[in-house]
């Protein structure tokens, strides 16, 4: 039962990220470079549930993000799968109980994911996103801040028995 609850929460989080991503894109396309809801969900899930959840969430979220971009399908999927798995694996080995530790941890993996995506994009399209998307430099910071906050909130709710 708790397992079903966790999975339904994860799926709900993914759907929410999907809606938020669409909404941010509608408000201003540059906003999705600053706040990436898919990255937030992948790393939060990886920290909370571990590598398998991080891996599967990485694949699902990455492919959803790819659906919003017209070019090669799978670039974000690959980078999120890899970083989601690694973030989940390392999160089980490290003590991430404090906000600052979680922030640093999420920052490193968000940077890894973004670097992978940018490198793959540059290799395939022969064009660097680093010169076209100024907000991209801030994405790891905003992602790690929001991931740390989300995990903190989740653990607080978990103690109260609100979430599984």
């Amino acid at each position, binding site marked *: 039962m708790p397992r079903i609850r966790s999975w339904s929460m994860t799926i709900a989080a993914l759907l929410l990220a999907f809606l938020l991503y669409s909404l941010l894109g*509608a408000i201003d396309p540059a906003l999705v470079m600053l706040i990436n809801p898919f990255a937030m969900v992948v790393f939060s899930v990886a920290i909370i549930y571990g590598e398998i959840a991080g891996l599967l969430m990485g*694949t699902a979220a990455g492919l959803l993000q*790819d659906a919003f971009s017209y070019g090669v399908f799978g670039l974000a999927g690959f980078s999120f799968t890899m970083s989601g798995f690694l973030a989940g694996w390392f999160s089980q080995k490290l003590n991430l109980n404090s906000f600052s530790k979680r922030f640093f941890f999420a920052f490193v993996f968000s940077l890894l994911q973004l670097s992978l995506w940018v490198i793959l994009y540059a290799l395939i399209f022969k064009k660097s*996103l680093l010169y076209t998307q100024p907000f991209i430099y801030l994405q790891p910071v905003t992602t790690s801040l929001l991931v740390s906050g989300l995990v903190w909130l989740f653990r607080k709710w978990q103690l109260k028995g609100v979430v599984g």
Partner: protein
Amino acid sequence: MSFLRLVKNKYFLAGFLFLFHLILISSQVPLGSRQTLLEKIGFQLFSPVQKMAAAGWNFIKSSYAEITNLAFLRQENQQLKKENFFLTQEKQLLTQKLRLYRAEKELTDNLASLRQKIIPASVIGFDTANFYRTAIINRGYEDQVVKNLPVCDKRGNLIGRTAEPVSAHEARVVLITSEESGVAVISVTDKMLGILTGDGQGKCYIKYVMASSNLGLQGDEIETSGLDRVFPPGLKVGRIISISSEKGMFKKILVQPYFDLRELELVAVLKENLTER
């Protein structure tokens, strides 16, 4: 080890998914101009969501406006905006028509049919990886939108052309700032011809102007020449911001497009080549 146990092994699963993505990526490279099946499916599935999100956002924006403004003022404003939109498009096209057709009667005849040849559309999304490449509009083949129709902003400046995939109510627009784009252009002052393409970073440049040529003036206005038979002649495109001919046999002519990405809410799809009649 049974297959189920193999799937449950996290390292096997991770390896399988990495491989899956690598195969997925390599099956789409090298890139061609044709859309992949995956892209088409993705477009059909997700463009309605983008449309909903854009509609939701517009609803929030308009609700806020309604609170802050008086209702009748807003209505009047909407009406005027719509009127202004069509008038700007008409003015832009009529200026060209005037050059071609001096006869008054012909102008009057054409004026009546002009409105039916413009499809007003709203931009519902952009390519999120690089928003200078493509935009999505809320008009599709049910609104008579097909591929390769010119698209202008509300001031009549060229923003791009429609491209595949075109679904029932949504279509992709390749922006002139995209590397995929190619527009036959001419400079207004010295009539320099060239092909305008995007740099993928918000600017455009004109290709194939010989370095030995003395044509090309900084600050000169660029408009479509109509030679590509996709874009009608005379649509305003942008202004030359720099010219250099240091290396290679061609000049590097950088153009700042007139359209502003952040102001692209309402656009006009030109149903047919309006100046060719």
